[in-house]
């Protein structure tokens, strides 16, 4: 599950210096159960602008049901939307 790109709800911190850090996200799993994921660590932040669409890619680590997930979240600046991009493991 979680392999495909899907829009997700995110709670994040916008710091006084303009940095964004995702804290928690909410998404549906394969069985359409609502999954709440607390992000333990943001490992890397990368600005991208594919086809001119500015976005920020976050590589995040979280514990989900006793497993560690490594996954990518994307925040699109223009639309203010978050996407679960892919699960690395």
């Amino acid at each position, binding site marked *: 599950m979680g392999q495909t790109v899907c829009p997700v709800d995110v709670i994040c911190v916008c710091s006084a210096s303009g940095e964004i850090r995702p804290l928690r996200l909410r998404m549906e799993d394969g069985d359409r159960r609502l999954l709440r994921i607390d992000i333990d660590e943001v490992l890397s932040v990368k600005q991208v602008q594919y086809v001119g669409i500015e976005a920020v890619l976050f590589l995040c680590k979280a514990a989900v049901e006793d497993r560690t997930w490594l996954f990518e979240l994307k925040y699109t600046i223009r639309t203010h939307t978050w996407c679960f991009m*892919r699960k690395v493991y």
Partner: protein
Amino acid sequence: MAQRVIFHVDANSAFLSWSAAYRVRVLGETEDLRDVPSVVAGDRESRHSIILAKSTPAKKYGIQTGEPLFQAMEKCPTLKVIPPDYGLYVEASRHFVQMLRRFSPVVEQYSIDEAWVDMTGTERLWGTPRTAAEQIRGRIWEELGFTVNVGISSNKLLAKMAGDLEKPNKVHSLFPEEMAEKFWPLPVRDLFLVGAATERKLRLLGIETIGELAQADVSILKKRLGKHGETIWHFANGRNADAVNPEPAENKGYGNSVTTARDVTRREEGQQVLLSLCETVAMRMRRDGKCGSCVSIHLRTNGFEHISHQKILHGATNVTTELYHAACELLDEAWDGYTPLRQLGVQMTRLSQEPYQQFDFFSGMDPRQFERKLRLDETVDALRDRFGEEAIRRGVFAQAPESHMAGGLSKFRRTGVTKPVPME
């Protein structure tokens, strides 16, 4: 003076690769449209569906940009068709030009997907022209996610020709010393500003390749093709002194056309379409403070035959009704009145920007009446600016299903699609 170094950077099948890059890099889709036969085409339901861009695999089926969608579907029934996304293209174009400006401050955007970059004197910054071009190509791919062709030469014309040599995702150079090998063997049609009509005329003179044109007698060319003959002769010899101009060039004319939802077979219908076109053309001219004195119309029949006709007015104008009356006269002269028409267009050229109006004895135009028309137009423009284009319309369009302001793009995608995108 040291030799100039000019780059021509052209996004490969821009609309398609921008849509493809968006789907792969932003939406995370696995299928890349660039690897399968696919096209960007307008709405299939309306008759506007022509191919706007095609992928390289689609090109192998012989599909051409500009041909109707149904024809392309016949060539390749498995063709993937995606709708255009103009907002995305404008954004992509803007970032494309911004990226080029990182390499040189002198960037001239030629259209939404191509630009010239003056790289003269940047060798110590970016390395040899080829190295710099590879860097541009690489960074656009990495950061923006699409491929470009870069043509390198010492002037704009040869740079553009170099960029077209082999596609996609290539860097080519075409310096004057390489012309005999790379440029002259090409068919004359490939030359910049040589279209179907000029090609036909040149063929009658026995000129098939650019090399033959370069060696032709310029006086004969001038006699047959006028000034244009001399221009393309210089082009064929790789001569072009135009500077890369970062300021966008002024419009030489204003025009709009529309493909109607159904064929026009009656005079009144044709006039109504012309009026809706005149509304938009004249409004754009007034917005830019321009007047024009040459009106032309072009018509396309349902058999895809092209008819065009033009006339010079007594004085320059941008009054909607003046333009409309001239267009109607032209319609009556050019059209038999029953051949079904699928596309109509109105264009205004011979522009001027004088703050005064020249009247003449013979047209019978009353200056006060003209003044009134002008004021009326200004008021209507102001109303439309403030309350939207639907706020006020002419009575003839009261029951009409068609738009009362035809041509161009629908409102939400009206900026920067055919013209270079204005930078913020």
